């Protein structure tokens, strides 16, 4: 079994995939802590549908690197969702649902009507679940991914105290003179970036899992912010590594396998939390 994994690791594209996997997992898990605590888990879900829509359009136009279309579109939608969520006219959750379902429908429509390949359902499936794209990562993909992941981690490291403060109590932070609107804008942009990057790895439908599960697992077993943040990053990387290895050995789809291990980790943490009386 281990021999099989090692054999695969000799191929550069598999090593790329593992590297990208680790980096995306860390970034997504860190962000997930904020989103889950701020009750914004749904934003990730909504934006992944937007990214799917943009991906479909990009596929039809036949661009070489689709990220150039998908990233800006998703960033703009993230900002839109956050802005409308703050106004009282359209409720935040309704705004997310409208944008995400709309994008999903348009995306699928585009793929069908302007299909460039004969295998439409295969294309849709791989965009949604990231079936094969992970193994076709180019060096450019890996570099983009590395740069953005490192930026997210640095942002967390340097702004850790402010991130905690604003997440815990936005009103208090605002009253203390912290620019909470700028903070929310940065968070929106980061969410969008991570979702687009993670699409290559596990597909747009399963991205939410990568964002939500590690944070939820960590919250079952730890009760202070620092430990929750660190643990969710660690468990996220572990689940991704084990999931990727398992998918090689068992020949299962990568994204779904990773998410299965995330679910499993959550169950273990949940039971541990129950037993130790922490949650």
């Amino acid at each position, binding site marked *: 079994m281990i021999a099989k994994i090692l054999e695969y690791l000799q191929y550069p594209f598999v090593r790329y995939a593992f590297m990208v996997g680790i980096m995306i997992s860390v970034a997504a898990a860190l962000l997930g802590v904020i989103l889950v*605590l*701020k*009750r914004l888990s749904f934003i990730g879900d909504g934006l992944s549908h937007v990214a799917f829509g943009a991906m479909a359009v990009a596929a039809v136009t036949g661009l070489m690197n689709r990220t150039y279309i998908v990233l800006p579109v998703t960033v703009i939608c993230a900002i839109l969702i956050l802005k409308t969520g703050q106004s*009282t006219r359209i409720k935040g959750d309704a705004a997310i649902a409208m944008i995400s379902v709309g994008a999903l429908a348009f995306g699928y429509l585009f793929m069908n009507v302007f299909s460039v390949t004969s295998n439409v359902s295969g294309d849709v499936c791989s965009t949604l679940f990231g079936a094969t794209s992970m193994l076709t990562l180019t060096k450019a993909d890996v570099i983009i991914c590395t740069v953005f992941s490192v930026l997210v981690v640095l942002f967390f490291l*340097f*702004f850790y*105290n*402010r991130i*905690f*403060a604003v*997440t*815990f*109590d936005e*009103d*208090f*932070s*605002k*009253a*203390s*003179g*912290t620019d909470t609107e700028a903070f929310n804008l940065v968070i929106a942009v980061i969410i969008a970036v991570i979702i687009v990057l993670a699409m290559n790895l596990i597909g747009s439908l399963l991205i939410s899992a990568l964002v939500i599960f590690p944070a939820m697992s*960590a*919250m079952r077993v*730890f*009760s*202070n*912010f*620092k*430990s*929750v943040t660190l643990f969710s990053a660690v468990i996220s990387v572990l689940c991704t590594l084990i999931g990727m290895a398992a998918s090689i050995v068992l020949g299962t789809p990568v994204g779904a396998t990773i998410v299965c291990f995330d679910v499993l980790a959550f169950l273990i943490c949940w039971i541990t939390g129950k037993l130790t009386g922490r949650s």
Partner: protein
Amino acid sequence: MKRHSKNDMALISVKDVSIGYGTNSILDGISFEVNEGDYLSILGENGSGKTTLLKTMIGLSRPIKGTVSFGDGLRKDGIGYLPQQTLIQRDFPASVREIVLSGFQGRLKKRLFYSNEERSSVEEIMQKLGISEISRKSFRDLSGGQQQRVLLARALTATGKILIMDEPVSGLDPRVTEEFYELVEDLHREGITIIMISHDVKNAVRYSTHVLDIGRSVFFGTTDEFLREEGREEQ
């Protein structure tokens, strides 16, 4: 207690302020001053606009009309604010120390991390409010009274001057409520100015020096004046 003449700069001056949502005002033409050493209770029914007024005073909401100005060396980042608890906080995984330390965020300015001085003064403040023993505990595991003490400690780290509290005793049982009022009174005696929204007329009258009542008609004055006014209404 230090009494200020009308000419002195008040800590907070509210002049002819109207508040509300959009263009619909819920309160019109509110004017009052808060001076150093005052203990102001803001009374009024639910929905009368107490919280919005408070948020307007500290710059979280914009008034439809009128101005709020700070004086006497008070700065926006020197206000100790104790907001109503949010749904988010109820199951938030944060230790007491982490929360109290976040009171210093206004002083971070361009710095990224808290200084050792700030970290040690957090210990002092926790000691003072009697929450040192629970400093490693998680906020979500505390009782309502302990949670309010933690949020009061955070507000204190942000200020040496003025505490602004939005119904800090709502949902607490009578004994814990009493303890909380005593604690606030101690801080008031040390010279900290207090502004508190309250439902509880009896305790408000007992501790405060000034009352702002935004009921059917707006009243602002000293507590004695308020009691006389009340007495007249009852006759």
